[in-house]
Each structure stands twice: as structure tokens, then as C-alpha cells.
């Protein structure tokens, strides 16, 4: 009986791994590699690559710039409603991207919540590249901020206190002590968020549309090319697999990043001050 179960477990593991890996391998065997690279040269693929790189980088930069101090503030302070704030940050993780797209439309769209205000400034974001950036930032930021909060929470309180007693003002404590000490976790979170942002599809399609050279990112190009040029769609897919493998390897191989992954569960709120 015991042997039977052990054997069944091994078979289950084999099925799981094959099920997950086989489709990825299929991308590369369906069309010869040379043809894949040729397909990437098509105008649709090239335009999408430019749009994707540009919008992803801008969105990612914005997430790092705003998300890092935000995560520091949340990670290093105990306040009423903290658990609620943590849950709200994770909301985009559980809401389907398509829903996120509709939500962004009714927020920033012409007739949305903030649309009137934006209109008054002569701004109209929906179906522009700015909309792509907003959609990407929206779906990737929880990935970064979650990891960043955990990394800041993991810093020994006394190190930040030591910096203060040495005369460091809040920004210097943040920049010279907290960020360097959290660097491993911040790097890993940043890589995961970037990967998630590049793959963003649903929210972008609804909020920004799929206009080649303007709002058509790589994932949208796959969908658009699907019936036009299957090889191009496949080639872009292969590009994603290569990028994904790179991120995974980085997470496994960069020591500071590896260590931080285990921290990525929110710790229960504990008092930041110690006394004895």
C-alpha cells in the first residue's frame, strides 16, 4: 500500500512537471528557431517591442519611485487600519485584469470619476500611451510593494535607531540605511513586478486599446497577430519565455534576491520598539 502511494506520487509529480513545461517547449519546436527570429523582424513585432519597452520602463520607474517610500512608511510603522491598507494593496492581485481595465476606464476615462478633472486640464488619457503606462503600473505595483514592505519590515529596528542617534534625518535613514539593507528584497520584488508588467494584457486592452505603434504592447500584438501571422505571435511568445526564464534564474542565483523570497509573507504586526 505504501509503495503504491509512493509510486502514485512520483507519477503525479511527473504529470505536473510535464503539463507545465510541455507547452513552453512546444513554442520552440513548432517553428524552427531561425524562422522565429525572422518573425520578430516584422513591423508589428518591432512596433510592439518599442511600445512595450517604453511603457513598461516608465510604469516601472514610477512604481519604484512612489512604491519604495510608500512601502517604507507602511513597513516601518504600526497604525490603525494597517491590516486594511495591506489588503487594499493586494486587491489588484485578486481582481481579474479585465475588471481592472474597466475600473481604470471609469476612473480616468472621459466620463469617469477623474475624467472631468483631467478634461479641464486638456488631458485625455484613455486609448493613449499614458493609459498603457497606467494599466501596467496598476497591475504590477502590488507585486513590488508587497515584497518591498516585507523587506523593510525585516530590517532590525536598532539599525535605524542607531542611524537616528548619529544625527541622521529621516531621509538619510531611509536612503543610507533602510534601502541598502532592504536592497536584496527590493531587487527581487522589482524583477517580479517588471515581468508582470510586461505581460499585462487585459487591463491594457480595455483601457488603452490595441493600436499598433501606439498602445499595442507585446501581449496585445500576440493576440492581434494570432490570425494574421501565427509565426509572429509564436515568436513574441518565445521572447516572453526567454525573459521569464531570465527573471527566474536571477531570483534563484542572485544571493540577496534568493534570501528575500522567504520573507515574502507579511509578518504579524509586532511592536517596533523593544524594551527590557
Amino acid at each position, binding site marked *: 500500500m505504501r509503495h503504491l502511494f509512493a509510486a502514485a506520487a512520483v507519477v503525479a509529480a511527473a504529470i505536473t512537471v510535464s503539463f507545465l513545461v510541455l507547452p513552453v517547449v512546444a513554442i520552440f519546436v513548432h517553428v524552427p528557431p531561425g524562422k522565429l527570429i525572422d518573425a520578430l523582424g516584422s513591423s508589428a513585432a518591432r512596433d510592439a517591442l518599442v511600445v512595450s519597452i517604453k511603457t513598461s520602463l516608465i510604469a516601472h520607474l514610477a512604481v519604484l519611485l512612489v512604491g519604495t517610500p510608500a512601502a517604507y512608511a507602511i513597513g516601518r510603522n504600526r497604525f490603525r487600519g494597517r491590516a486594511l491598507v495591506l489588503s487594499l494593496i493586494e486587491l489588484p492581485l485578486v481582481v481579474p485584469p479585465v475588471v481592472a481595465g474597466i475600473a481604470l476606464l471609469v476612473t480616468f476615462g472621459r466620463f469617469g470619476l477623474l475624467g472631468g478633472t483631467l478634461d479641464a486640464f486638456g488631458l485625455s488619457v484613455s486609448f493613449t500611451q499614458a493609459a498603457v503606462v497606467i494599466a501596467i503600473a496598476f497591475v504590477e505595483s502590488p507585486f513590488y510593494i508587497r515584497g518591498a514592505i516585507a523587506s523593510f519590515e525585516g530590517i*532590525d529596528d*536598532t*539599525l535605524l*535607531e*542607531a*542611524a*537616528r*542617534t*548619529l*544625527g*541622521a*534625518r529621516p531621509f538619510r535613514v531611509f536612503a*543610507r*540605511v533602510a534601502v*541598502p*539593507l532592504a*536592497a536584496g528584497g527590493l531587487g527581487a520584488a522589482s524583477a517580479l513586478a517588471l515581468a508582470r508588467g510586461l505581460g499585462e494584457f487585459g487591463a491594457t486592452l480595455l483601457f488603452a486599446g490595441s493600436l499598433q505603434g501606439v498602445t499595442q504592447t507585446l501581449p496585445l500584438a500576440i493576440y492581434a497577430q494570432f490570425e494574421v501571422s501565427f509565426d509572429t505571435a509564436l515568436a513574441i511568445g518565445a521572447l516572453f519565455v526567454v525573459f521569464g526564464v531570465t527573471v527566474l534564474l536571477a531570483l534563484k542565483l542572485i544571493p540577496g534576491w534568493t534570501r528575500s523570497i522567504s520573507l515574502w509573507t507579511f509578518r504579524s504586526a509586532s511592536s517596533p*520598539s*523593544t*524594551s*527590557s
Partner: protein
Amino acid sequence: MALVGPSGAGKTTVLRALAGLRRARGRISVDGHDWLDSARGLDLPAEERSVGLVFQEYALFPHLTVRKNVEFGRKGGAALLERFGLATLADAKPRELSGGERQRVALARALAPDPAVLLLDEPLSALDAHTRGEVRTELQQLLRAADRPTLVVTHDFEDAATLATQVGVLVQGRLRQLGTPAELVASPADPFVASLTGANVLRGRARRAQDLTELELPTGELIRSTDPAEGDAVAIVYPWEVTLSPTPPDDSAQNHITGVVASLVPVGNRVRVRVGPVTAEITADSSERLGLMVGERAVASFKATGTRLLPQP
């Protein structure tokens, strides 16, 4: 100055309040500068108080070299590195250092901005027993050289007596006694201070007996003292005032307690011997001469004039 007390007495709380790392009420004034004055609503943040704090586990920045750690508070720490014997370690990271070296870095870092007050939180507790004595002596010299108001917090009276000229005993947030180490040993304010300074504390009931006071222990044995006392009281005898012998000696000592030797602990060239309820500290030489062994009977003797009596709180 040192603050001594059991864990939970509030020693660290006092340090953190002084450094501005913990909310406090009252008034803190250093060199004519007010840091805290609740009445006026003044409460300077930690970074604006001129204080050097050496943390219990030193709290060195692990991502910075020794030099960068020392220079965090103020640039130009070359002379300081030299003075603390850290010049050769300037480019090492804290994790490569020994406990004693880490402590020197922490002290140099705290002194670099030339603080008005130096605070040390259990400076020796992070060290192994065998390096402790050495580092303590070293720290004593460094503190003397630093020459500024210093507050050391520790649970160990010996550490406090070595590092400070004034020792305050803090229990449950209250200052029980303040004095030089010698004063605390000579006249402890209460049984707790006495036991903290290393004395034997024997509880019993006191009554007058001619010129002396007799204290009856729960075991029925009598202890005589020249101090007056009445009712529930404690006798206080320092281990170095207790002599040991195989049989009750015929000498001037009034007090003899016969008991079984429970333990023999060598401490340097001395041996701490536990006989019944009393601990005696005798030379290793004497211990050998008497052939003391655990489990055998011995008599602990001490003079009535060397026995202090305090009312039991």
C-alpha cells in the same frame, strides 16, 4: 555613572528615553540645552539630541565598512580609528570582527560626533564569558579616555562597579539607592541591593539579646549582629567575610553555621563555596589546605561586627 537592576527594571527604557527613541514625560536638560520639557511641549527627536548610544548588540551597519560605520555620524574618523586600534580593520565589514572589536567600533561610532552624553546599553552582555573580563578592562580605559558624562546600563554589579564611579540600583522603575560601589557594599539600603552586590541574605526574626541582636533563622540557628533590629529582618554578610573550617573554631567569631558543602566554584585564584544557606569566598590555597569536598560537612563562621541587619520590607 551606571544603572544596575534586574531585567524588566526599566534600565533600557531610561536610556531610550534619554536618547529620544521612546516617548517620555518630564524634563531632560544637558549642558543647559533642553531636550525634553513636557510642560513646554518640547521633545527633541533623537537625531537632534547630542547623544552617543552604544546598543546592546552594537547595531553596526552590516552593509558598511568599519570606517564608514565610524564616519556615519561625522566625516573624518581617521584619528578615532587609530585611537581605538581599528586602523587595520578600517575596510573590514562588521561580520568579520570579534565581539571586542565590534564593541570598539560601536563606541568609536558613538563618540565620532562628539556627543554631550554617552549611553551604553548592556555593553558586555553580547560577549562570551572568557572575553568579557578583558573587554571590560579595555572598555574601562576607553571610557576614562572619552571623558564625558556616561551612563552605563547593566544587570551585573561587578560590571557597574568597574565601569562607573556612581552606581544607581533600579528596581521596577524606581531608584532604590545611589552611591559609589563601595557605599552600596558598605551600607546597602535594602536586602535587594545587598544581594545585587553579592552579599548573603539570610531571613529570620530578630530580638534583642543583651548588647547584641539575635536573628533566628527558620532552621533554628541563631545569628548575632551588633546592629539593632526587631521583628522580621535579614542578615547581610559578604562572602569574603565568611571563614570555613571542618569543626567550630574557638575564636572571636560569634556566628557559626554548620552545613553540607553544596558546591565549589573556582573564580580565578579564589573559590566560592556554598555551605548550607551561606556562600563563602576563600582562596584556592585555603580550599586545598582544608581538603573541602562537595557533600562533606563544614562550618561557616563570621563575626557579629561584620553582619548587617536590615528590616524585611
